[in-house]
């Protein structure tokens, strides 16, 4: 099944800066994420987790090694190919990063409009369905400022999952939330990902949500290691 790996990283190195200022962030990182797998990445701040996430998300250009996402090699990929890959990845950020001037439904539609197969009417209906799935059916036409932190993050989840991405990248999605809303958000994320068969790579410091993972990896000083954990299931 390795051919169908959603993410396949081999011997990836990454550094910021040049010459004397060069600072290597990632050392010989290898990681494989299979279809439908939920992987949690933990580790201290500044260890390179976010850098790895941005590389997988095609937000940064890889420098050395191999990084294949959704079957596309990103090493040496051009801007156009990178943008293309981004459209098939769902992002969830620490801050919800919703567009403030448009409603919850329109925010979700923004990710659907990237895909030509949805007509505007379909996109609108699909966005409503997605928001219903995250329990916000009564808040479709509210702008983000009228929603609570947990509700906003749920809109962000709906936005990330609306186009049925094969891969979801989440960077500390619960960091800005209290433990109850955080739990709620993660449960919804897990449930929807399972239904859609999406893989998740989730970066977190929050030990209380580790149980949703199939696998936990740890990043420390730019080196990735597999954690032996017993997960809740």
């Amino acid at each position, binding site marked *: 099944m390795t051919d169908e790996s959603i993410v396949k990283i081999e011997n990836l190195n990454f550094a910021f800066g040049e010459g004397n200022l060069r600072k290597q962030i990632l050392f010989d990182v290898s990681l494989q994420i299979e279809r439908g797998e939920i992987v949690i990445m933990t580790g201290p701040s500044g260890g390179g987790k976010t850098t790895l996430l*941005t590389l997988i998300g095609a*937000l940064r250009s890889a420098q050395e090694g191999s990084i294949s996402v959704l079957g596309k090699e990103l090493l040496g990929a051009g801007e156009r190919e990178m943008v293309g890959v981004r459209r098939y990845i769902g992002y969830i950020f620490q801050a919800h990063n919703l567009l403030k001037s448009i409603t919850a439904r329109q925010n979700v539609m923004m990710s659907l409009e990237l895909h030509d197969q949805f007509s505007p009417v379909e996109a609108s209906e699909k966005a409503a369905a997605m928001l219903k799935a995250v329990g916000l059916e009564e808040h479709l036409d509210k702008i983000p400022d009228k929603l609570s932190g947990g509700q906003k993050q749920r809109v962000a989840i709906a*936005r990330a999952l609306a186009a049925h991405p094969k891969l979801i990248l989440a960077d500390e999605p619960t960091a800005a939330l209290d433990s109850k809303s955080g739990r709620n958000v993660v449960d919804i994320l897990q449930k929807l990902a399972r239904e859609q068969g999406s893989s998740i790579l989730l970066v977190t410091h929050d030990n209380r949500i580790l149980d949703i993972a199939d696998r936990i990896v740890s990043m420390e000083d730019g080196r990735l290691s597999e954690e032996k954990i017993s997960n809740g299931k």
Partner: protein
Amino acid sequence: MFGKIPLAWLQLSFQKTRLLTAIAGITFAAVLMFMQFGFQEALFSTTTTIHKSIRGDLFLISTQSENLFSSRQFSRRILYQTLNNQNIGSASPIYIGILPWKNPWTNKERAIFIMGFEPNSTLLEIKGIKENFGNVTTEDTVLFDTLSRPEFGDVEANFKKGERVRAEVNKRKVEVRGFFELGASFAADGNLITTDLNFQRLFNRKLGQIDFGVLSLVDGANLEVVKAEIEKTLPKDVRVLTKDEFVQFERAYWEGATAIGFVFNFGAILGLVVGVIITYQVLYTDVVNHLPEYATLKAMGYTNGYLTRVVLEESIILSLLGFVPALITALALYALASAGSGLPIEMTAGRGILVFVLTVVMCFVSGLLAMRKLKQADPADIF
């Protein structure tokens, strides 16, 4: 909810106060341009209204004349000599000068522009002249321009009440015997027209010295050929112009020899700059405020091109929203200025289009400037 999300409009209209401020700024800039262009065109057109309304094919003027309002005289003999040419049907003199008019009701003096024509002259195509010119053949009578500035007195109303309106012009009593409609210009606040003899009395000048000569050709004569023939016979200090050249001669003076054209164009440019600054401020703030959101859109797979379009759409929307009230305001101000100054400032389609294009360009340039900030919306930075 149908169609794609109109993000540009939603982003702009989210903060109503800011949107209104932006529209007000753009409107101001566009109105400023309308007024500057309007006044400029009014100046240039009013200075040539007289030229355009004189029926004639060729015009003789002194080479030292700079414009209609400060002309140098030359001998009437030169005018009549042109009649030796078979192709000249008629040759008529025009006398021109400026004298103080004492308002008969306030006794305040103000300079008025006076033209004298031969008694049976049909040279002038000005409303009212044909009907009334016969009234001023008696001594010390004049026709008064109803479009003169109000400072000359409410001549027409008193006249219509049946009063005899008499005023002092250069210490000489004259009576108004009728009216015409010409309009004030930048150089003349009011106008009188009378016969050559009355003109002579007012100015105490000899009729042998004329300001302009008007020639009309016989049917079938070739304008350029005749002009060239006349040119050869003229002394060095008199030249001959066609009607178009005569109009252009006046216009060129006001455009070139004075700073008026420059002043108005400068004013219009100032409006444009103000508009660019205001629009740039609004669009730049918009981009800065939404930088994380735009970075998110890029992370989702939106291209730079999409975001660029959003900013440019915003600039176009702003220009449209600013232009419409500007057009309405300008129309109102034009009417006000025409009524107040007697200057015929009119909205022309050409000027409307010009200001519209400039407004769009103004907002577009601001949009392009603001877009440089968009590049900083780096999706890698938002994690």
